[in-house]
């Protein structure tokens, strides 16, 4: 059963939800949100697509395989954790670099491994949930 209305809406929703999921990911450190929630919202965006236009269409829009996304995410999370070893901290110690200042208050923005780790979490959740959902869709 394919509905033109749902298919058209899904395309718009996809963009909106993806932007929203990234927004949730980025604000996670100080406001409700984070990699887990962002990943789930992102996955939902593609699942809506799959429900409306079929799993094949969802895969086409996604371009890469969800399993690969999950693997890359796990790799990013691990790399961000091991980065602490470069400065001889224990693994998974957050590393912060201030740009335009020398503390959180004065700096314009920061480069940190914690956000990189969260991006890894985002990709793992997105990839894994999608892998499961799309495979199930195709199976039945």
């Amino acid at each position, binding site marked *: 059963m394919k509905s033109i209305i749902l298919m058209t809406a899904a395309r718009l929703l996809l963009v909106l939800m993806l932007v929203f999921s990234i927004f949730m990911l980025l604000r996670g450190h100080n406001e409700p949100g984070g990699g887990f929630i962002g990943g789930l919202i992102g996955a939902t965006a593609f699942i809506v697509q799959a429900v409306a236009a079929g799993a094949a269409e969802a895969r086409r829009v996604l371009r890469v395989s969800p399993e690969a996304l*999950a693997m890359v995410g796990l790799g990013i999370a691990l790399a961000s954790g091991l980065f602490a070893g470069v400065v001889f901290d224990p693994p998974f110690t957050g590393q912060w670099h201030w740009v335009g200042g020398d503390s959180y208050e004065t700096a314009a923005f920061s480069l940190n491994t914690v956000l990189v780790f969260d991006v890894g979490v985002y990709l793992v959740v997105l990839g894994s949930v999608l892998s499961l959902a799309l495979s199930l869709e195709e199976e*039945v």
Partner: protein
Amino acid sequence: MAGTPGRRSDLYTISGALPVLIAAALFVWFLGMAPAVADGEVLRWAIPWVPSLDISISFVVDGLSLSFALLITGIGALVLLYSCAYLDGHEHFSRFMLYLTLFMLSMLGLVVADNLIVLFVFWELTTITSYLLIGFSHAAPDSRRSALQALLVTAAGGLALLAGMILLGVSAGSFELSEIRAMDEPFTEHAMYLPVLILFLLGAFTKSAQFPFHFWLPNAMAAPTPVSAYLHSATMVKGGVYLLARMHPTLGATEIWTWTLILFGGFTAVFAMVMALRQTDLKLALAYTTLMALGTLTLFLAAPVGYAITGMMTFLIVHSLYKAGMFLVVGIIDHETGTRDARLLGGLARSMPVTTLAAAVIGLSMAGLPPFVGFIGKEILYAGGLEMPGAVLVVGAALIANILLFATAFIVAFKPFWRPAGGELPKTPHEGPWPMLAGPLILAACGLAFGLIPWVIGGPLVTPGVHAVLGREGTVAELTLWHGINLPLILSLVTFAGGTAVYLRHLWLRARIAEAEARLIDFDERWDRFLDGLKAVAAWQTRILQSGYLTNYLMWIFATMSATLLVTIAARGGIDRVPEFPTLDLTHWIVVALVIAGSAVAVFSISRIAAIAGLGVVGIAVALIFVLYGAPDVAITQLLVEMLIVVLFAVAALHLPLLPKEHGVRKVHAGVALVVGGLTTALLMMASDGPIDRNLTDYFEVTSWPEAFGRNIVNVILVDFRALDTFGEIAVVVIAAIGAYALLKGAPEKEAS
């Protein structure tokens, strides 16, 4: 296995030459320690491994370790060299050499380890590598069965040993053997002595194939002959003896130690020799003489008597030399004639003169005739036995075992060479290649040389070894061929006379033993029945617990959970007070109503989709609770997950039939569900009744901003404070996804026609 002409021998390849060189280099290295050890020094190395658990990688070289290390590396080098010719051109030659080298290194680690945990790791490594070696001819079912049997028996003992080691380490307060030995209070008076002793003996007896765990050793003959030669002489089975010797100062010198070792060791020695005489396969006969040697070594470790321990140490070296040599000789016979059947073989002296010479010299040492080192070993055993408690028993067992060993030595080392051939041989016999002859010749020469100049092994190996086993300076018997006319000499003469008599009547005896054996318990067969029983139990409980229906799995899980909770509550004296029912306002009551409504739909609907939607309602109600109590992150996650679950379930459930109305089953399910729900509610109310420990919450509230620069504590915990945990969790998520993917995509095509 001559190989194609012009082909380079495997000996001259990396995988052939390197192991031999490694073994030889290690031998020389350990030889370099001999002068220091002879002076009574104990060499020790240690590096911390897990300092928080008091585990360090520590090695000790004393007389006992050095004796073993030299035997392991020396015989190892000869066996590896021998293997290069024995398995020349074999398709898995490199693999074999790798296994054998790893086995050698594991064994070496075992005898020099000072830390209990390190010792255990090497102990299990020898188990695993020996499994690979025994099962080397993995295409033969027999070989696989023997390998598995050896693995199961020795690994079961290994588990007992692990328990014993942890018990010993914890009760003694140290995992370093040298520290445990140096403690003022003897461990034998500790309350945990008996359990520790039993567990250690289980480990040692299974490894060293003491009766009634002896049956795996003759079966291990399925391995290629060089492996048998090595396994039986210097390694593997001597691991158990080494452990007993190593633990002697800590666990020995009690009544129970003495009598257990005398009974098990003595019985194993005599039983094994009777069985050896019965065998017609040369290799099997030798295998049973190994059992006899292990029994004898155990027997003489029974008491802290200097002479007895001297006998043990000497016999250890003597046995390794003749057993390795004899196995290698049998390997040459097998390799060059194609058979090991004592009834067929004969007249090999003409075609294999060098092998014959080596066999004769080794055989004389094995039989314990002067001037070979075997004679010295036997004399000291008798002298030591006479000083032990239960001397009649000890010397009696040793005497019977030695008489039969004498006869067996002649059956194996002389009969095949000198008597006329008993039948057609599969191959025309000819002399073996030099790498195969080197081992037996060198070992034979050692047997003669150590007999003529016994102080070579006496000073650097036996004396410090005895001190190490006793844990103190003790009277060490002097190694010499001539002690004057005394009781041990008379016993030796009795041995020779008895042995000759047995040899002359051995064909008749063999038939009698074969008749008797048929009426005895066959341990090998019992083992198979035991394994079959074990498998039947496993299959039975799998059928019951894992029926393949998700419903049944869930029921078992929840029933088990309820049972354990109920038992715990009952054991703690029941629920002592009823928690106060909390006051709820209108919003809370709405949530409660939603949960109840959702559950009712899930329980009573016969449509799966409706049931899933009902569950979704429950999930959303729970999310509402999170919202009410100010946990937006958890609430958002819960909402999203609930939504996704409903979508996924709905996709899957579309194609399933309606729920069946099996009322009988559903009553049981309802009962389990009510108990689980009731228990969980009761426990939660009790848990939230008391004051909540805010320690961690406070810590995160205070540190989240200054240390991790984040105001959302939940997320800061996830990505910073407990990032390692999160990493573990997302790894699990990925693994679960891969598992589901494999199940969904990897299943064979159902519609394939």
